[in-house]
């Protein structure tokens, strides 16, 4: 997979409010927390609903397909370990049907010059290690 940093610079740490999200990603499923009190989706997973302050959520599965809302092409290695991955694309994709929730992911195996706002993308997975997978994006 081109356009992702090497596995040894990636480490996931979870909190009670983010753990279900990352447990699902390990199974290659994207889930978005939805407030069970008022129905508002939110990403990133967080302890309180920004709309009604409730803490109860249900985890709604999403296929991750959407359009690129914004992106940048990273051309400078902030840490030397990512130099070989340059240039890579970090994009924000808006998830349809979630009231504007967005997911950040690398657009993999692409020519960075082809990436544009509004292009459709689908979800794929970067398997970092056993039990840890990170969502990535692919141009359709």
């Amino acid at each position, binding site marked *: 997979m081109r356009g992702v940093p090497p596995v040894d610079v990636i480490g996931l740490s979870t909190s009670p409010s983010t753990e279900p999200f990352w447990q699902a990603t390990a199974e290659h499923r994207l889930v978005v927390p939805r407030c069970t009190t008022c129905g508002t989706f*939110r*990403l*990133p997973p*967080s302890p309180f609903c*920004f709309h009604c302050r409730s803490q109860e959520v249900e985890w709604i599965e999403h296929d991750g397909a959407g359009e690129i*809302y*914004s992106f*940048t*092409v*990273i*051309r*400078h290695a902030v840490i030397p370990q990512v130099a070989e991955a340059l240039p890579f694309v970090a994009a*924000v994709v808006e998830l349809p049907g979630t009231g*504007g*929730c*967005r*997911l*950040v992911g690398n657009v993999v195996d692409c020519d960075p010059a082809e990436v544009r706002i509004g292009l459709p993308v689908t979800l794929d997975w970067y398997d970092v290690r056993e039990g840890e997978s990170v969502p990535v994006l692919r141009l359709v």
Partner: protein
Amino acid sequence: MQEPLTREQYFGARMISDPLCLYDFCLECDGAVAVVTTSAERARDLRHPPVFVGASANGGHGRWGQAITWMGMPDEYFASSGHRPVAKRLYDMAEVGPADVDVALLYDHFTPMVIMQLEDYGFCGIGEGGPFVADGNINWPDGGLPVNTHGGNLSEAYIIGMTHVKEAVEQLRGSAVNQVSGAEVALVTGGPASIPVSSLLLHN
């Protein structure tokens, strides 16, 4: 930065993270700035001419902090510096508006934040910051609103924005190196992007 930066040098610099190139990022610097505050009454007896705090505000939009790490800010202010609610509070508190500001010291760790703050503080319309700058409005000495007359974080030193406070004080005392003629009101902003953001209106 010790030497003038030409338009050609700026656009010729290597890209770091599109569309930001080398000169769109400030430098890490060592330094210190101290600000002495006291009552207006005591300040009048001190050696230097006093500069008064007309208003100060701190905070941000409720959704902003929750949203920023995953770029989930609502559409209406996605392309903003996060300063809009603080700007309104600041102006209301000081009972002045953008037209009253003579010089603006805008926190400039990254170039786009200057353009977005010009919009968020009402110096031009939302989305019009680029043309506003290109038309020369923020130039010193001839622009209507000279910005970062000291060079700012980008070109003087990045002391986490404190040089902006120092520059505002010097402008209002009439002792700045690049003095704005007759400056009476200065805007100083801090920390755009992540909240809380903060700002000051100073006057002489």
